[in-house]
C-alpha cells in the first residue's frame, strides 16, 4: 500500500513569495490533516479535512495560509506571502475514517526555508 505522498520535498523561497505544497493521502482515507513542525518541536495541527470539508481550521493563519481539498482526495496548502517565521516542515497525514481517533499516517513532509 502506498503511503502519504507529498511534494515537493524541499523548497527554498525568498520572503514575500508564494509557495504551495501538495499532498496525496492513502487511498480510501477520508480524513486529511496538515501539520507544521518547527525545528525541535512536535507537529502542530493547521487544518483537518473530513472528505472535502474543513472541520477544524482554528490554527490556520488565515491571513496568509489557505488550503483546499477538492473532490475529497488530494490537498494543497498555500502560503502567500511567506514570512521568515514560516520556515518549518509541513506534514500531511491521513486516517481512514471520519470522527474519533484513528491512526494517523504521516507523509515525509515538505521542508520549507524562507530567506
Amino acid at each position, binding site marked *: 500500500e502506498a503511503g502519504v505522498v507529498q511534494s515537493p520535498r524541499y523548497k527554498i523561497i525568498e520572503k514575500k513569495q508564494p509557495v504551495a505544497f501538495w499532498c496525496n493521502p492513502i487511498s480510501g482515507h477520508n480524513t486529511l490533516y496538515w501539520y507544521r513542525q518547527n525545528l525541535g518541536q512536535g507537529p502542530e*495541527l493547521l487544518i483537518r479535512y473530513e472528505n472535502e470539508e474543513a472541520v477544524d481550521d482554528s490554527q490556520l493563519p488565515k491571513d496568509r495560509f489557505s488550503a483546499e481539498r477538492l473532490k475529497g482526495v488530494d490537498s494543497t496548502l498555500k502560503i502567500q506571502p511567506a514570512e521568515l517565521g514560516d520556515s518549518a516542515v509541513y506534514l500531511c497525514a491521513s486516517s481512514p475514517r471520519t470522527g474519533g481517533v484513528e491512526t494517523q499516517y504521516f507523509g515525509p513532509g515538505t521542508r520549507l526555508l524562507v530567506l
Partner: protein
Amino acid sequence: QQQVKQSPQSLIVQKGGISIINCAYENTAFDYFPWYQQFPGKGPALLIAIRPDVSEKKEGRFTISFNKSAKQFSLHIMDSQPGDSATYFCASYNDFGNEKLTFGTGTRLTIIP
C-alpha cells in the same frame, strides 16, 4: 498553550539498556495517548498507544506506563538497539473535545554501541 510536557529533550543509552521517556499532560479530558517515532527526513509513525482504562501496555520491547492520578505516562524501550535511535513524541487526544492530537516537544534518543 503547551498541554503535553515531555522530558528529557535528549537521551543517550547504551545498547541493551532501557530507554525511558516521560510525558505529563494537563487536560483531564484527554483519553488516548499515543507515542510516535520519527526518523530524520521521515514523518512520525505510530509506535504504541494506550487508553486511560489500563495502567500498562506492552508491545514487544516497547511498554507504555500510565498513571492517571498523576496525569503522567512514559515510554520504556527495553534492550535498546541502535535502530531505535530516533526522535520520539508523546501525544494526547480528546475523543469528545476538539478531536485533535496534541504532541509533546520530542525526545531525541541515541543508542550507542
